[in-house]
C-alpha cells in the first residue's frame, strides 16, 4: 500500500484551491463567459471551402458586405473549414438563401455549407435557463443522495468539492474565452457525477475505517483512506482520461469543447476529492461518534 503524506499538504492546497475559486468567481463576474449561439441567440454557419482560392479574408470581406452586424469568422478544425457566427436576430426564412446568393456572387460556388444553426433570442434564453436549472437540480440531487447515504459532515465536504470543480472549470472557460454551449452543460453535469463518484469512494473508505480504527485521529484516518483507495483513484482517472483524450483528439471539432471541459473536470474532480473533501472532514471533526450516532 502507498503511504503518501497527503494530509501534510491539506493546508497549502486548501489555500491554493480557495484562491483559484476566488479568481474563477471574479473572472465569471467581471469577464463573464463566452456564450455560444445556444445561449446568446444568433446564427452559426459551418462552411467548407472546396475552391482553394477561398480563404478567411475573402470570406470576411464578402460577409462584411451582407449587413449582418458583427460577424466572427474563424478556422474550424481542418484548413478549409470555417465557422461563421453572427448575432443578427430572427430567422427570416430567406436569410440563408440570401447569404448563399451573396456568396455565389462574391466567392463563387466552390464552397459547401455543412451546418447551419440559428437560435432565436427567446429560445436561447430558455436554453440558458434550462441549463442553469439542470446544473442546480443535479447539485441538489447529489446533495440529497449523499445526505441519505452519509452524515452531514460528508455532504458538506462532497458538495464543496463539487462547487470547487464546477467553479474552476467555468473559470478556465472564462479565462480562455472558450465557447459555452449546450454540450458544456452536459459536460458540467457529467463532471458533477464524476467528481461525486470519486469523493464518495474515498468517503466510503473513511467511514469503514472510522469503525475499524477507533483510536485513529481523523487527520490521519483520512490520509490512510486516501492511500488505501489511491490506486483505484488513479487508475480510474487514467482510463477515463484516456477515453476523453481520444474524444478530444479524434472525435472531431464539435466535441472539442465538451471533451476539454470533461478533461478539466476529471483532473479537478480527482484532486478535489483528495484535497478538498477530506480536509473538510478534518475541519468538521468527524470521528467514530459521528457515524455511530446514526447507527442507533
Amino acid at each position: 500500500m502507498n503511504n503518501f503524506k497527503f494530509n501534510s499538504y491539506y493546508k497549502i492546497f486548501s489555500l491554493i484551491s480557495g484562491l483559484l475559486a476566488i479568481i474563477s468567481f471574479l473572472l465569471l463576474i467581471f469577464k463573464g463567459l463566452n456564450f455560444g449561439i445556444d445561449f446568446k441567440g444568433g446564427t452559426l454557419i459551418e462552411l467548407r471551402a472546396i475552391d482553394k482560392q477561398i480563404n478567411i479574408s475573402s470570406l470576411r470581406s464578402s460577409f462584411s458586405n451582407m449587413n449582418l452586424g458583427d460577424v466572427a469568422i474563424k478556422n474550424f478544425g481542418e484548413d478549409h473549414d470555417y465557422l461563421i457566427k453572427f448575432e443578427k436576430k430572427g430567422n427570416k426564412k430567406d436569410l440563408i438563401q440570401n447569404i448563399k446568393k451573396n456568396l455565389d456572387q462574391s466567392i463563387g460556388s466552390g464552397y459547401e455549407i455543412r451546418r447551419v444553426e440559428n437560435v432565436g433570442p427567446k429560445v436561447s434564453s430558455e436554453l440558458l435557463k434550462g441549463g442553469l436549472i439542470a446544473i442546480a437540480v443535479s447539485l441538489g440531487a447529489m446533495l440529497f443522495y449523499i445526505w441519505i447515504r452519509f452524515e452531514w459532515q460528508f455532504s458538506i465536504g462532497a458538495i464543496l468539492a463539487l462547487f470547487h470543480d464546477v467553479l474552476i472549470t467555468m473559470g478556465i472557460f472564462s479565462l480562455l474565452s472558450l465557447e459555452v454551449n449546450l454540450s458544456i452543460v452536459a459536460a458540467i453535469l457529467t463532471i458533477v457525477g464524476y467528481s461525486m463518484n470519486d469523493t464518495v469512494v474515498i468517503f466510503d473508505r473513511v467511514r469503514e475505517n472510522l469503525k475499524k480504527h477507533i483510536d485513529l485521529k481523523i487527520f490521519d484516518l483520512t490520509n490512510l483512506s486516501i492511500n488505501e483507495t489511491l490506486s483505484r483513484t488513479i487508475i480510474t482517472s487514467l482510463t477515463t482520461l484516456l477515453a476523453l483524450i481520444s474524444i478530444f483528439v479524434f472525435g472531431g471539432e464539435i466535441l472539442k469543447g465538451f471533451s476539454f471541459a470533461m478533461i478539466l473536470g476529471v483532473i479537478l474532480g480527482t484532486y478535489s476529492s483528495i484535497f478538498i473533501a477530506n480536509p473538510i472532514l478534518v475541519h468538521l471533526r468527524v470521528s467514530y461518534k459521528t457515524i455511530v450516532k446514526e447507527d442507533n
Partner: protein
Amino acid sequence: MLYFSKIRIITIFVISIIFVLFSLSNLTKFDDNYFSKKINLGLDLQGGSYLLLEIDNSPVVTKELQNKITFLKTYFKDKEINIFNIKINEQNSIIFETDKINIDLINSIFLNKEEPINPYYDKYKSYQFDIENQSNQFKITLSKYGIIELKNASLDQAIEIVRRRVDEVGTNEPNILKRGNDRILVELPGLDDPARIKNLLGKTANLSFRFVSKSNEAELGTDLIEFEDQSESAVYVSKRIILSGENLLDAQPKMDSQTNDTIVTFSLDRVGAKRFGKATISGVGKRLAIVLDGKIISAPVIREAIVSGSGQITGNFTFQSATDLALLLRSGALPAPMNIVEERTVGPGLGKDSIKAGILALIIGFSLVILFMVFKYKIFGFIANTALIFNLFFLIGILTLFEATLTLPGIAGIILTVGMAVDANVLIFERIKEEKNNEKNQLVAFDSGYTKSKSAILDANVTTFIAAIILFFLGSGPIKGFSITLGVGILTTLFSVYFIARLLTSLYVVKNKDKEIKI
C-alpha cells in the same frame, strides 16, 4: 460471491448471445423479424433539419374577441338586455356598459356554468373569461385557462396543416411534434437545404377573393393592398370576402395552353361554387383581387360568370412558385402566422465525417483502455476487458432493442462509458489485493474483495446515473442522446462486471485455487 450455479451460467450465456445478436443486427441484414431493429442516427449524424416553429397567437386572440363581441351583441339582444359602447381595449379586454338595473343580472349570467356565454371548463375548474365589474361598466378578459384552450386549439390545427404541407413536399420520414402550447418541432432527416420547407411553413396561406373597389379612393369597407410582385401600385379592395381558401377542394399548377403561362387551377366545394357563381354573374367587368396573406397575387377582370365551380389563378409564377402556391392552397391555411425560432441543419457530409470521427475516437479510446488494463492487471485485465467488450455489446444491443437515437454526443457518452466502466472492476481488484494481504485463503480473499467493494461501487455509479437522468429530463436535442448512452452504459457496466467478469474470475480462481494467484 464466487459461486455460480449451472442455470445461472447458462442464463448469462444466453443473455449475452442475444445482445450480441441485437448489436450485430445494425451491421447485417437478418431476415428474422426479431433482429431487424436498428439504432436510429440522430440528425447530427445522418444530416437533416431541425426546425422549431412558434405560433404567433395574437391574431387568434383578436379573432376570438371579435367573435365574442358579435356573440354578446346577439345574445343580449335576444334576452332584451340593453348593452352599449362595446369594444376591445388595448389590453385585449372587451369592455361594455349597461343600464344599472341589469348589473346583477349580467354578472349572474356570466357566472352560470350552463350558459354558453362564458363556457366553463370542468377540466380546469375555471371559466373561459374573467369578468370585472365597476358600477355599470363590465370588463371581460380571457382567463389563463381560456388562453390555454385557445392556444391548444390553434396548435392542434396548426400541427395538422404543418403535417400536410411537409407530407406534400414528400420528405423522408418527417417527425412533427408539439412542444409546449405554442410550438411545433419539425425534424426532417436527410434534408440539408430546408429553404423550400421554411418558405412553405412560413406562410399562413390565407386566401381570399375580393372585388377591387371601382373608385380607387379610400372608402368605408375597403383596404389598401399591395401587389405581391409590385407590378402595379396598391389598390383599394373591398373588405367583403367572396370566397376564402376554406372553400377550395383542390389546387394544381398548370401550363396555360394558350399563353404558355404557369397558372394555378382550383376547384371549389358546393357552397363555394354557388357563391363564386353568384358573385361573378353580378360582377362581370369588375376586377377580382386574389389576396394571399395580405398581398394581391393578381386582380383579373371578370369576363364572364364562372358557375362551373372551378377557376384559375394567374400571376407572375414560375413553375416552382405555382407548385408551392397550389400546395399551400391544398393543405389549408394556418390559424395564425408562425415563426422559426430555432433551426439546426447538418449537411450529409458533416454527418458522415462526425460518424467517422466518433468511431475512430471510440476505437482508439477503447484500445488504450484495453491495453492499459492488460498492462496493469495481466490475466485479470483480460477478464475486465472481456467484460468491457460485452458491455459495449449490451449497450449497443439495448439501444438497438429500443431503437434509440444515436447522436454525436451519444457516441461521446459511449466512449466515456468505456473509460469509466473499468472503474467497478478496478475497485474490486484493488480490494481483492488488500484482502489478500490479510487473508491466507485466497478464495476467501477474492470473495470478500467482491463483497466489500459493493457499497463503493453502488455509490460511485448512482451518482453518475443521477447526473444522466437529470440530463435526460432537462437536456435538449443531441444532449439527450448523451444522457441515454451514459445512463444505459452504467446499467450495462454493472451487469457485465457482476455477471461476466465475476463469472470469469470465479472460473479462473477455482481452477487455480492450489496455485498462488497474482492480481
